[in-house]
């Protein structure tokens, strides 16, 4: 067995910006995604802050109606296509999937680099609308026809950007599927794979099979705008509702592209910090596949008021409820994993617990929207805005930051200040709930979304929300500053396993060498979370 000779960790292996931009090392690509993502996230979040400021009072506070409309569209486009869809797979999937499988890289390293570049090109296209043409699109991230065909703003570029970003997503998914099928360590069968890998596997299939449909749909919008032919134009018999079908055939499954990797992260965090095996491994693993599959057939719940046939509304509502069941299974198994553990309360665990709480609120409000009667009332109100921020930000966003705190020492070989991290978490958590919970109230009262101005009776919830956004901002700034400071000044971490984790990334040196392993990885005897037979690793 080969043992460690001179190890060069991946951070120091090569120097210079070019060695990053054209690196085919999955770890470096993961980090490049991280830096790009955080940048776009800050842009998106700043737009969110602006919107909240505008909504502080009825009437004009800051910007004109048209600008407001452009802001929420760009906010949505950035958050969905540039942040949340790539987030966990592109950063942590890239970095850790190969290591967790016990291999040295993904199946197609150069394709992986290409995905990153395609992503950057798409991002530049999306942001270029700020400068070119008549400003960013003002259609909402859904680009509903026929307004998206009529408006003078730069919809064409925004839509093309989404198309390009879709390709990046497809290539990442393709790479992960092949990697998972071909590069698992000997002895690691599918049912001995870490749950994070399972989650990525299910996600990748959605990326692969749903994204092309929105690609072609968006191209049709471009064709309508530039060639003047009307596929969705009612005046020649086109059907705007068909656009909605095609859009949601992708975009509903896409919400599980956002959620499943987060479920994967939580399934890693809980066993590590409870120091025990996960409860119901198979149930969690297979429920990911079930969610991915059922998720394809419920897109119609976004269109309950569009004049669909009663039959369709019936079917879509029923199927929507089906998807709650595999999610419920996950939640119960997670909570059961805490039972009789030996729980070490660290920052990542706090994010995981907040995730479960907030995702439940998001999920339950999803059920309210999935029920026909209530959705008729709540569709396109702030209730929906509350719902999706709870699942996307309170869920996936929190899982993302949890993952960042969890894998941080492995990635950089340093540790952030834990106390500051916990304080930032508390502020973040309070801010989040203050910001988004009032949206359920204003939604129930009947305040429609995408409103530049609103009736005075909605004033109070809006004030609370806006104040919440400031608290949230404070927490986020504190967290990010803490992480940045830790990167340069933090305590050096050299032990392989600072949290006592068990999956293979904790067997490699910290930070990992270019080839990921300095000795053959050792699998625990009974599955990936078998703490009783945890391989002893010495430095």
């Amino acid at each position, binding site marked *: 067995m080969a043992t460690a000779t001179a190890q060069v960790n991946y951070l120091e292996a090569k120097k210079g910006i070019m060695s990053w931009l054209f690196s085919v090392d999955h770890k470096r690509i993961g980090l490049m995604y991280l830096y790009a993502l955080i940048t776009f996230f800050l842009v998106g979040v700043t737009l969110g802050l602006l919107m909240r400021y505008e909504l502080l009072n009825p009437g004009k506070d800051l910007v004109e109606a048209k600008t407001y409309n452009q802001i929420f569209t760009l906010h949505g486009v950035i958050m969905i296509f540039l942040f949340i869809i790539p987030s966990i797979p592109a950063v942590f999937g890239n970095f850790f999937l190969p290591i967790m499988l016990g291999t040295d890289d993904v199946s197609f390293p150069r394709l992986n680099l290409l995905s990153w570049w395609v992503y950057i090109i798409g991002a530049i296209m999306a942001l270029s609308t700020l400068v070119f043409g008549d400003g960013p699109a003002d259609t909402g991230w859904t680009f*509903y026809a026929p307004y998206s065909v009529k408006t003078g703003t730069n919809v064409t570029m925004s839509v093309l950007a989404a198309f390009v970003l879709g390709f990046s997503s497809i290539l990442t998914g393709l790479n992960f599927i092949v990697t998972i099928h071909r590069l698992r360590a000997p002895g690691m069968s599918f049912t001995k794979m870490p749950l994070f890998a399972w989650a990525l596997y299910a996600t990748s299939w959605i990326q692969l099979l749903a994204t092309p449909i929105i690609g072609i749909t968006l191209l049709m919008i471009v064709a309508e705008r530039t060639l003047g032919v009307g596929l969705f134009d009612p005046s020649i018999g086109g059907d705007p509702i068909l656009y909605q079908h095609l859009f949601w055939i992708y975009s509903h499954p896409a919400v599980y592209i956002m959620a499943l990797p987060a479920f994967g992260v939580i399934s890693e965090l809980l066993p590590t910090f409870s120091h025990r*095996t996960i409860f119901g491994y198979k149930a969690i693993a297979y429920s990911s596949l079930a969610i991915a599959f059922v998720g394809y057939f419920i897109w119609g719940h976004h269109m309950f008021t569009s004049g669909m046939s009663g039959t369709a509304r019936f079917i879509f509502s029923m199927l929507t409820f089906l998807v*709650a069941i595999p999610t419920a299974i996950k939640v119960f198994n997670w909570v059961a994993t805490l039972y009789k553990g030996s729980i070490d309360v660290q920052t990542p665990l706090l994010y995981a617990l907040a995730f479960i709480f907030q995702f439940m609120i998001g999920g339950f409000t999803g059920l309210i929207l999935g*029920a026909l009667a209530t959705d008729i009332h709540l*569709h396109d109100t702030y209730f929906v805005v509350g719902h999706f921020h709870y699942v996307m930000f309170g869920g996936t966003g929190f899982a993302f930051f949890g993952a960042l705190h969890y894998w941080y020492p492995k990635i950089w070989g340093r540790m952030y200040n834990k106390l500051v991290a916990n304080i930032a978490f508390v502020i973040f958590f309070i801010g989040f709930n203050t910001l988004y919970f009032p949206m359920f109230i204003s939604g129930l009262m*009947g305040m429609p979304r995408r409103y530049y101005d609103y009736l005075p009776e909605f004033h109070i919830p809006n004030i609370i929300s806006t104040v919440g956004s400031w608290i949230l901002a404070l927490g986020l700034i504190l967290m990010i500053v803490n992480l940045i400071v830790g990167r340069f000044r933090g305590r050096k971490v050299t032990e392989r396993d600072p949290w006592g984790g068990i999956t293979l990334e904790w067997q490699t040196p910290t930070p990992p060498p270019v080839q990921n392993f300095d000795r053959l990885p050792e699998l625990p005897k009974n599955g990936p979370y078998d703490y009783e037979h945890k391989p002893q690793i010495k430095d």
Partner: protein
Amino acid sequence: MRNSASTFAQGVDLSLYIIVGISLVFLIGITAVMIYFVFRYNKKRNPVATNIEGSNLLEVLWTAIPTLLVVVMFYYGWMGFKPMRSVPDGAMEVKAYGQMWKFSFEYPDGRITDSLVVPLGKPVKVNLVSRDVLHSFYIPAFRMKEDMVPGKNNFMWFEATKTGRYDILCAEYCGQLHSYMLSSVTVLPESEYAQWLASAPNLADEHPGLTLLKQNACLTCHSQDGSKIIGPSFRGLYGKTEIVETDGKEREVLADDEYIARSIREPNADVVKGYMKGMMVSYANVLNDEQIAHIIDYLKTLK
């Protein structure tokens, strides 16, 4: 929740309470258990973890119970919704038009209004028509919403249960002034409603051209004071020389009767320089020659 004023409110609110109720039980229960575990099995209190792989009984239980519960939720959702799509016979019919950024209503007797007036306790069917892009006709107090889709006839119906005035909001994003696309529905006791219906539409002594501009929402895009909204201002339009683009070529035209009438009937034939083609839709089937003449007549007064 806001006051409820239609027969649907009960079904909607009931399904809301049921789902919220079940959800709260789970939310509070699960959160409490979670927090309890974190304290009880903290590593200080419980230094050695017990490995439990899982339990088939529990898996079955927590698959079956949520399944049952979601069936209940679905059932109430469906029952609350079902009546919304079956209009009772003999419902009174009104046509509602949505266009950027104004609702208007056409009654069977031909009168056109800016806001809806309906009798108490009578089913009213509203036929929803869009003249340009998607809109959504939303009356929160009635728990009722349905989209207006161009090129497609959609409808909704309701029966008001309380007199009063309730907001109508546009709930589907439709462009710049989406949040200003408001109207209201006034529910009158039957006798007052009959009175309203009998009274002649109040035309006041406004210029008929101005009335038409208001009724057709022209003024949401065209100002009368020279400022630019979505379209060019009407002030000083008549008799001015416009630079327009016709079939991709720029040319100058005099804004005379013929040009303005054409701009209303085929707005995309000559597109004024600096404005978007396609924003304004044709009013050829909405305004007749006489009405267009009234409008032109009025535009002449806007010096």
